[in-house]
């Protein structure tokens, strides 16, 4: 089976998020990057599919400095990696376009993407790529298996409901957290990754269809902050708990 997995090298939401002077971007020097959280689940699921069915797993990433993330994927068991070099500023539609360009040059049975990226939170690139490729897809998948030329996917709905769907191959699924427990990157894996292929696939991208006007802190109610030494803070918290009558 030929399995593709889409991964984004994205800033962690736990980085210091400082808006740059232009008001439209973040100060890149404060950001720490890693593989997007949801993509770890997608990579794990892809590698498990290969372990079960044989074949090859290929990771694809669009961006400039995504080598570290692609190397991490290779260390987790991905066989080769493809990078589409693109300067920051591309939007979800453009990333999807780039991914589609790669997939059109390759043969594949199934494509896995994360449900959403931890920085942009669009939940778009996977679904848009599937739509552009005209292949069936399912989003927010929490269980996946492949049998007899089709994928079976359980997807999350609202209110605790789920639905099971069948997708003839080739297809795409976007992976929701909880589907698996991603493996740790081993020293052996890191060593093996060094010998694996990581190649560039340049794509000429169109223009963004939306433009960023302003990035800012959300204008909402702030909690009253309790400050002081840890012991004082603890005492104030107990007072608050007591005020609700759950303690006597």
């Amino acid at each position, binding site marked *: 089976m030929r399995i593709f997995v889409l991964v984004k090298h994205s800033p962690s939401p736990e980085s210091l998020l400082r808006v740059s002077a232009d008001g439209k971007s973040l100060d890149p020097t404060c950001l720490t990057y890693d593989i997007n959280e949801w993509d770890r689940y997608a990579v794990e699921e892809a590698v498990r599919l290969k372990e079960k069915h044989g074949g090859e797993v290929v990771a694809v990433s669009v961006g400039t400095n995504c080598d570290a993330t692609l190397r991490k994927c290779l260390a987790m068991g991905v066989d080769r990696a493809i990078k589409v070099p693109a300067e920051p500023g591309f939007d979800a539609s453009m990333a999807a376009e780039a991914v589609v360009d790669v997939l059109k040059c390759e043969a594949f049975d199934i494509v896995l993407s994360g449900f959403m990226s931890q920085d942009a939170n669009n939940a778009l690139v996977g679904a848009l790529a599937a739509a552009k490729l005209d292949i069936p897809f399912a989003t927010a998948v929490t269980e996946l298996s492949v049998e007899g030329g089709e994928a079976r996917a359980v997807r999350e709905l*609202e209110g605790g409901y789920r639905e099971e769907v069948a997708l003839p191959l080739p297809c795409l699924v976007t992976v929701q957290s909880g589907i698996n427990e991603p493996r740790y990157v081993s020293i052996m894996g890191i060593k093996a990754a060094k010998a694996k292929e990581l190649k560039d696939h340049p794509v000429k991208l169109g223009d963004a269809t939306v433009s960023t006007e302003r990035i800012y802190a959300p204008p909402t109610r702030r909690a009253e902050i309790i400050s002081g030494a840890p012991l004082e803070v603890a005492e104030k*918290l107990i007072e608050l708990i007591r005020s609700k009558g759950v*303690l006597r």
Partner: protein
Amino acid sequence: MRVFAIAEHRLGELNPTSFELLNLANKIKGDGTSEAVIIGDETLSNSLASHADTVWSISGDQLENYNPESHADVLLQLFKREPPDTVLLGNTSQGYELAPLIAAKLHCPIVTDIVEASPEQKGLTVSRYIYQGKLMVDLKISRTPCILTVRQGIFKNEAKLSGKIIKLKLNPTKPPKRRFLKLIEPEKCEVDICKADAIVAIGRGATASLQLATKLAALIGGTLAGSRPVIDSGLLTKDRQVGISGKTVKPKIYIALGISGAFQHTIGMKDSELIIAVNKDPQAPIFNVAHYGAIADVQEILPKIINKLEEHPPTPTT
């Protein structure tokens, strides 16, 4: 502006998000129209008509159950006849699929999970959260049509209209490739966190403090709950998950330990009477829903609280 809102239903009931989409449509339509679209259940058209100028009620072969391909297919047929300026969908399990499908086929801009939209001279400006609630961004869309998915629970102000209902028979042009197999009911739960007066909720930042958090919950006669990553990792059972894909709770007191405060979590606890958050990151969005916050390390504060409480053991009131 012609604004279309794609209604949603399951098991014979409208998803309340459908009305919120129409509220937003009415807000931005200007001298244009708000038009609801309902696929596969004519009986629900009437209640939509009280919020829309027009309701398009589409029926056709195998449209009763949601299928992204068939539903996108008939929507595209409708939009060919009735060209939209803006199409609104819920940021829901259906919207995640239908919205990008339509956008890709129409080659038009798409923005997901918006919480605000205002018409401009040319096009729209929309606002949405990024970094899981830590920042916001305003985006300008100057091309039409555009596709937007809308966060639930934001556009609640009700419109009072009496729109006309137009019934349409449209069949998908081809059978969908994806097949629906079955609907899986919510899992039965052992604990009911919704009944608790006090909840101690742990997030990814407090997983190392599970034992202490359990102790605190016992001391205040409360129940332990968690954010999704804590449940995903198997530390707590699924019936203790708070949030959009878990439970909605309204206890007297909700203590959030090491929880960042992503919308998908806070939607399930924001109406608690008293919310106290402990997080070491001053930028954590949980401080936007909490009443009181301590910018502190859970591992440092929690033992102190417990020691204090154990010095003077309290008796829970219930």
